[in-house]
C-alpha cells in the first residue's frame, strides 16, 4: 500500500470545506440569477458609501500600523540590547497580553474609556471637564494599536537579536557614531523584521470588525462591519453584494501582501533571514 493513501481523507475534506466555500464566494460575487455579471463588483466599487468605508478602513489601518511601528521598534531595539536572560523575560511580558482573548482586551478599553469609566474619573478628580472618549474614531485606533502592537514588536525583536554584533562594532571602529551606525547598519539589517511586522499589523487591522463595533459604537463603519452587515443583518438577498465586497477585500489583502513581498526582496538577502 502506498503512503499517499493516508492523505486522501484530508484531500476530500479540503475539497468540500476549503475549496468549495471559496469558489462559492467567487460564484456569488460574479453571478446574478445564475448568469455571469460584473454588476456586483462594479456596484460595490462605485457605491459612494462603500468607497468611503473602504477608504476609512485603509486610513485607520495605515495610521495604526505607523503608530505600532513607532512604538514597537524602540521596544524591540531596547530588548535586543539587553542581557539574554532579562530580554527573554521582558519579551514574554510583552507577549502575555496576547494570550487574552482579543474581545476581552477590547472590552477592557471599553470599560476604561466609558463616560463613567476610570479615565473620566481621573479627569474629575483633577477638576477637569469629562470627555467623550468612547465611540470616537480615536478609540478605534487605540483599540487597533493595543491589540496588534505585540505583532510588531515580536518579528523586529527576533531579527535584531539575531543580528551579528560584530557588524555594529565594525561600524564603530570605522568611525561612525551611534546615529550613523543605527541608520546605516542596524536599521537596514532589521528591515525584514519591520516588513513582516507591518504585514502582521496592517492585514488584520484592515479586516477587523469587532473593534470598531465595540469602541466606535457602530458610528464608524469599517469594511469588515460592512461585510458583516451584508451577511448577518441583510441575509441571503445580500449574498451577491456581500461576496463582491469580500472579493474586493481579498484582492486588497493579496495586493498588500505582494507589495510587502516585493519590499522584502528589494531589501536584499543580507538581512536577518527567515523569521519564525
Amino acid at each position, binding site marked *: 500500500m502506498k503512503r499517499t493513501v493516508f492523505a486522501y481523507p484530508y*484531500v476530500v475534506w479540503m475539497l468540500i470545506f476549503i475549496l468549495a*466555500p471559496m469558489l462559492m464566494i467567487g460564484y456569488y460575487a460574479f453571478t446574478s440569477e445564475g448568469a455571469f455579471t460584473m454588476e456586483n463588483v462594479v456596484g460595490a466599487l462605485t457605491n459612494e458609501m462603500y468607497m468611503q468605508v473602504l477608504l476609512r478602513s485603509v486610513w485607520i489601518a495605515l495610521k495604526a500600523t505607523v503608530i505600532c511601528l513607532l512604538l514597537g521598534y524602540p521596544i524591540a531595539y531596547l530588548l535586543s540590547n539587553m542581557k539574554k536572560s532579562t530580554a527573554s523575560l521582558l519579551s514574554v511580558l510583552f507577549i*502575555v497580553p496576547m*494570550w487574552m482573548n482579543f474581545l476581552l482586551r477590547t472590552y477592557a478599553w471599553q470599560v476604561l474609556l466609558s463616560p*463613567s*469609566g476610570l479615565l473620566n474619573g481621573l479627569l474629575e478628580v483633577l477638576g477637569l471637564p469629562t470627555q467623550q472618549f468612547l465611540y470616537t474614531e480615536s478609540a478605534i485606533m487605540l483599540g487597533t494599536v493595543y491589540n496588534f502592537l505585540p505583532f510588531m514588536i515580536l518579528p523586529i525583536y527576533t531579527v535584531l537579536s539575531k543580528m551579528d554584533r560584530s557588524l555594529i562594532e565594525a561600524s564603530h571602529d570605522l568611525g561612525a557614531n551611534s546615529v550613523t551606525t543605527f541608520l546605516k547598519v542596524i536599521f537596514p539589517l532589521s528591515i525584514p523584521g519591520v516588513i513582516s511586522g507591518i504585514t502582521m499589523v496592517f492585514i488584520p487591522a484592515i479586516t477587523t470588525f469587532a473593534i470598531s463595533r465595540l469602541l466606535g459604537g457602530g458610528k464608524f463603519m469599517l469594511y469588515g462591519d460592512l461585510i458583516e452587515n451584508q*451577511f448577518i443583518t441583510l441575509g441571503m438577498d445580500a449574498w451577491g453584494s456581500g*461576496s463582491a465586497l469580500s472579493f474586493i477585500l481579498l484582492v486588497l489583502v493579496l495586493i498588500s501582501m505582494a507589495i510587502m513581498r516585493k519590499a522584502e526582496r528589494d531589501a536584499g538577502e543580507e538581512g536577518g533571514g527567515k523569521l519564525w
Partner: protein
Amino acid sequence: MVKKLRNFFKGTYLGLMLVFLYAPIIVLMVFSFNDSKTMGNWTGFSFRWYEALFRDSTIMSALGVTFSVAIISAVVSTVIGTFAAIGLNSMRKRPRAIIENISQLPVVNPDLVTGISFMMLFAALGIRDGYTRMLVAHITFNIPYVILSVMPKLRQSSNMLYEAAMDLGCTPWQALTRVVIPDIMPGIVSGFIMAFTLSLDDFVVSWFATDGIQNLSIYIYSSARRGISPKINALSTLLFVAVVTLLLFINLKSIREEKEADIQRKKLKTKTR
C-alpha cells in the same frame, strides 16, 4: 552621568509601554471584585460577580461549548492532519504542491472571509445544527496548522524507516503506528496544542459559521455590545489567571529541564576528568 540618564529613559519607556499593555487588564481584574455595578466607582470588595458568573447558565453553557469544541476539533484535526502530512510527504511534487497551496488558503485568508465562506457553504449543504457547524469550521481551519507543524519533523525523519519496517514484516498500519508516528511525535503534540489554542481563542470564524449557539467569544461580543457587565470582568480575570498559570507552568518546566540537563553535563565533565 549621561549613561545613567540614558538608562533611566530607556527603563521609563519600557515601563510606560508595559503599563499601556497591562493597565486595561489590571483595571478589569480589580473591578471584578467591586461591589457596585458601575465601573470606576469603588464601593467595596465582594465576590458577588463571581457568584453571579457561576450561576449564569448562559455563560456556563458557552464555556462548555468552547472547551468541547476545542478538544474535539483539536483531536480530529490532529488525526486528519498527521495522516495528511504523512501522505503528502511521499507524494510526487506536482499534486503535492497543488494540495499544499489549497490547504494554505485558511492561513492566508482573512478570518472574516473564511467565516463568510463557511456560512454560505453550510446554508448550501443544508447543515443546520449550530454545534456541527462550529465543529466542522474549527477542524477545517486547524488542519493546516497541524500539517505545518508535523511536516518539518517528517522531513527530518528518514523516508526509509517506513520501508525498513515493512521489510522486517510489519503491515503498513503497524509500520505507521509503531515506527513513523513515534518518530514524529513532538510535531504532532505541538500541532495539537496549536489547534487547541486556536480553537479556544477563535471568534470571527465562529461568529459567521455557527447559528443559534454561543461559545465564549460570541457571548462576550454580543453582551459587550449591549453594555458592560461586571460578570464579564470576573470571567476575564479567571481566564487570564488560568492562561498565565499555564504559561508559567510550561516555562518553569522547560527551565527546570534545562537546569537538570546542565547539572548532568557538569557531572559528566567531572567524571571524565
